[in-house]
């Protein structure tokens, strides 16, 4: 049975400007996978660990965060903070016997950039390969 992953992306305002300019249709035309749902934030530094965990609880097979380049964050250190929280979740996933690759942090250039689509495709491919989230038990 073909598997369409449920991927939740948390992106800061600056790295996700493409979503505003192109709209959903434009992004799809660029090759942005349908499996990815984008949540736009003022800054990824505001992300709580519990918000990312909740995404898994709500059925995500994969989660990623896209924030500014680590040394060029619009809000100075926001994306570095987010990266640390993603790192903490990777550790917790490993402790629970779940692939840490199901969550990722990406540091992307601000504004329009092909990498915004590329990382979404990368996560789509990775999570499709990993298969459904082990957190879903027998429900999937």
């Amino acid at each position, binding site marked *: 049975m073909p598997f369409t992953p449920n991927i939740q992306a948390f992106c800061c305002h600056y790295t996700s400007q493409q979503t505003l300019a192109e709209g959903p249709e434009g992004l799809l035309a660029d090759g942005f996978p349908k499996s990815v749902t984008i949540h736009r934030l003022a800054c990824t530094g505001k992300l*709580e*660990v*519990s918000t990312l*965990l*909740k995404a*898994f*609880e709500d059925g995500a097979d994969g989660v990623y965060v896209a924030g500014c380049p680590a040394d060029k964050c619009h809000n100075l250190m926001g994306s570095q903070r987010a990266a640390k929280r993603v790192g903490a979740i990777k550790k*917790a996933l490993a*402790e*629970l*016997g*779940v692939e840490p690759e199901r969550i990722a942090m990406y540091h992307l250039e601000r504004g329009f950039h092909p990498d915004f689509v590329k990382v979404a495709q990368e996560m789509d491919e990775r999570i499709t390969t990993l298969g459904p989230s*082990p*957190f*879903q*038990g*027998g429900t999937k």
Partner: protein
Amino acid sequence: MIIAERKPLNEIMDMVKDAKRILVLGCRGCVTICSAGGEREVEILASLIRLGKQKAGQEVTTIEATLVRQCDKEYIDSIDQWDGQYDAIVSMACGVGVNFIANLHPMAKVYPGVNTSSFGGSAEQGVWSEQCAGCGNCILHLTGGLCPVARCAKSLMNGPCGGSVDGRCEINKDVPCIWQSIHDKMVRIDNAAGLAAIAPIRDWSTSGHGGPRKTVRNDLTV
């Protein structure tokens, strides 16, 4: 304050493997300050427990709550409001909280969510360092305010061991030799002569070697 850090998740999951309803109980005291067991950490641990149980195909519900403190009977009594709603409590307070719940709720299964590490303070953001061993017999007035019991790897009472190099402890070059620091401090406060005094053989009974310690203030008892 008391410093703690969350236990490895698989240890916690093993503790609660038979529980279907779990009260994850934080503390607004020290463990909130050192980001180990406050409201935010309760939320995270409860989520991780639910995910772990989901992965194992087991049902679970969690109650997330945080008490003002877990080292006072008055606050522990408020656990009564969840009577009958949980099979196990995971306390994210220091070990004192776990003990208090175990004392006051003889039938409750209470498990520690954190490892209680030391008495310390914030060295910098996200870093805490041990400063006091709670040994019950302070000699800080003799050592420039710096504690050789807690901060010397060997708890030496009469100067350095001889293993330090360039003022760093031989156990780890990141740790200052506290006796070097004591010496420097005593010189700075013009009390180097005080270092010549020989500390008598110490009575360690106040340090827990005499059994559980108890403090009674008759002026406060009723």
